C-alpha cells in the first residue's frame, strides 16, 4: 500500500524545532522561485531575451489580471496576491514531481518521505490563509483607519452589533475555508495519484497527473483571486465607512 498520512512527517529537528518534509519542500520551492527570479531579472534589457520575456509576460499578465479586480489599489496589493499565486502554483506543481512522497527513509516499519507537497500540509495552507487574512485587515485599517473596526464592533445599533459578530465569524471562517480548500484539493490529488500509481503504475496515472497540474493551477488562481477580492471588499468597505463618517 502507498504511504498516506494526513499530517506532514517530521524528518529531523533543528535546535529543538521540528523540520517537516513539507517545510523542506517549501524551502525548495522558495529556492526555485528566488533563483528563477534572479536569473530572469539580473541583466534586463529594453529588448528582452527569452527568460526576461517569460518573466515579463507572467508578471505583466498577473498585474493586469489583478488590476481588473483591485482597480487603483493594484500597486499596493500586487506583491501579496502575485506571491500567493506564484508560491502556491510552484508548491502544487513541485508536489507532483517524481520523488516527492516516494523518496525517503524507513524508521523501522514506518516510511518517512523526504519531500512532501508543501500545500499538502495544513501548516502551509493555514499559514498562507492567516497571512492573507491579516493582510486584508491591514489594508482595511490602512485605508480608513479605526473606522474600519466598526465593521466588526458597532454598538450604536443592535442590528449592526449582530452584523459585526457575523462579519467577525465570516472573517475567521475565511481562514478555515482558504486553508482547507487548498489543502483538501492538493492532498486529495496526491492520494489519488499515489493510489493510481499503486494500482496501475504505467500510463494510467498520466491523465490524473495532467488533471492535477490543472487543479494545481486552478487552486493557486482561486486562492490569490479570492484574496484579491476580499482585499478589494475590505478596502471598499473602509472607504465607504470613511465617507459616511
Amino acid at each position: 500500500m502507498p504511504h498516506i498520512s494526513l499530517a506532514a512527517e517530521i524528518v529531523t529537528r533543528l535546535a529543538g524545532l521540528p523540520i517537516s518534509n513539507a517545510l523542506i519542500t517549501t524551502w525548495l520551492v522558495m529556492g526555485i522561485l528566488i533563483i528563477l527570479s534572479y536569473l530572469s531579472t539580473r541583466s534586463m534589457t529594453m529588448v528582452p531575451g527569452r527568460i526576461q520575456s517569460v518573466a515579463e509576460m507572467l508578471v505583466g499578465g498577473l498585474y493586469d489580471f489583478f488590476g481588473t479586480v483591485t482597480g487603483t489599489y493594484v500597486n499596493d496589493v500586487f506583491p501579496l496576491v502575485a506571491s500567493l499565486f506564484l508560491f502556491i502554483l510552484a508548491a502544487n506543481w513541485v508536489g507532483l514531481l517524481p520523488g516527492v512522497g516516494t523518496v525517503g527513509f524507513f524508521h523501522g516499519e514506518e516510511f518517512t518521505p523526504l519531500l512532501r507537497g508543501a500545500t499538502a500540509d495544513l501548516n502551509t495552507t493555514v499559514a498562507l490563509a492567516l497571512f492573507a487574512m491579516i493582510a486584508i485587515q491591514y489594508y482595511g485599517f490602512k485605508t480608513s483607519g479605526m473606522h474600519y473596526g466598526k465593521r466588526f464592533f458597532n454598538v450604536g445599533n443592535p442590528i449592526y452589533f449582530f452584523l459585526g459578530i457575523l462579519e467577525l465569524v465570516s472573517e475567521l471562517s475565511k481562514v478555515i475555508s482558504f486553508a482547507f480548500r487548498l489543502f483538501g484539493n492538493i492532498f486529495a490529488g496526491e492520494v489519488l495519484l499515489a493510489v493510481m500509481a499503486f494500482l496501475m503504475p504505467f500510463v494510467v496515472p498520466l491523465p490524473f497527473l495532467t488533471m492535477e497540474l490543472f487543479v494545481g493551477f486552478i487552486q493557486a488562481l482561486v486562492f490569490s483571486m479570492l484574496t484579491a477580492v476580499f482585499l478589494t471588499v475590505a478596502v471598499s468597505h473602509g472607504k465607504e465607512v470613511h465617507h459616511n463618517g
Partner: protein
Amino acid sequence: MEKLGIEPSLLLAQIVNFAIIVVVLTKLLYKPVLGMLEKRKKEIEEGLAITERMRAEAEKLGGRREKLIAEARSEARVILEDAKKQGHDAEREIVANAQKEAAEIIEKAKREAAATHEALSGDIRAEAINLAATMAKRLVAGILSPADQHKLIAKHLVDLGKAKGV
C-alpha cells in the same frame, strides 16, 4: 490539531517563509519587471508621439511642397502662355513684314514693268514715225519739191504728235 498535523512552530515557520518570499520576489522580480514594462511603455509612447509629430511635420511639408509645385506649375503655365503669345506676335509681325515686302517688291516690279512698257512704246512710236516718214518721203518725192515735202511732213508729224498726245 495534532491529528491534522498543525504545529505552531511549523505554522510560524511557514508564515515567515511566505513573508520572505513576498519580500524577495518584490525586490527581485516584481519591481524590476514592472519598472521595465513601465519604462518600455513610456519609451513606446514617446516614440509614438515623435512619430506623430514627424508625420504632422511631413504632412505640413508635403502641403507646402504641393503648394510650391502648384505655384511653379502656374508660373510655368503663365510663362508658356507668354511665350506662345510672343511667338504668335512675332509670327504675325514676320508675316506682315513679309507681306509688306512682297507687296513692295510687286509694286516695284509693276513700276519697272510700266517704265519698260513706256520706254518700249516710245521707241516703237519713234520707229513708226520714222517708218511713216520714210514711206511718205518716198511717196511724195515725185510730187512735191524737197522744201514742200519737208513742210508737209513736219506738219503731219506735228498733227500726228497732237493726235497721239505726245
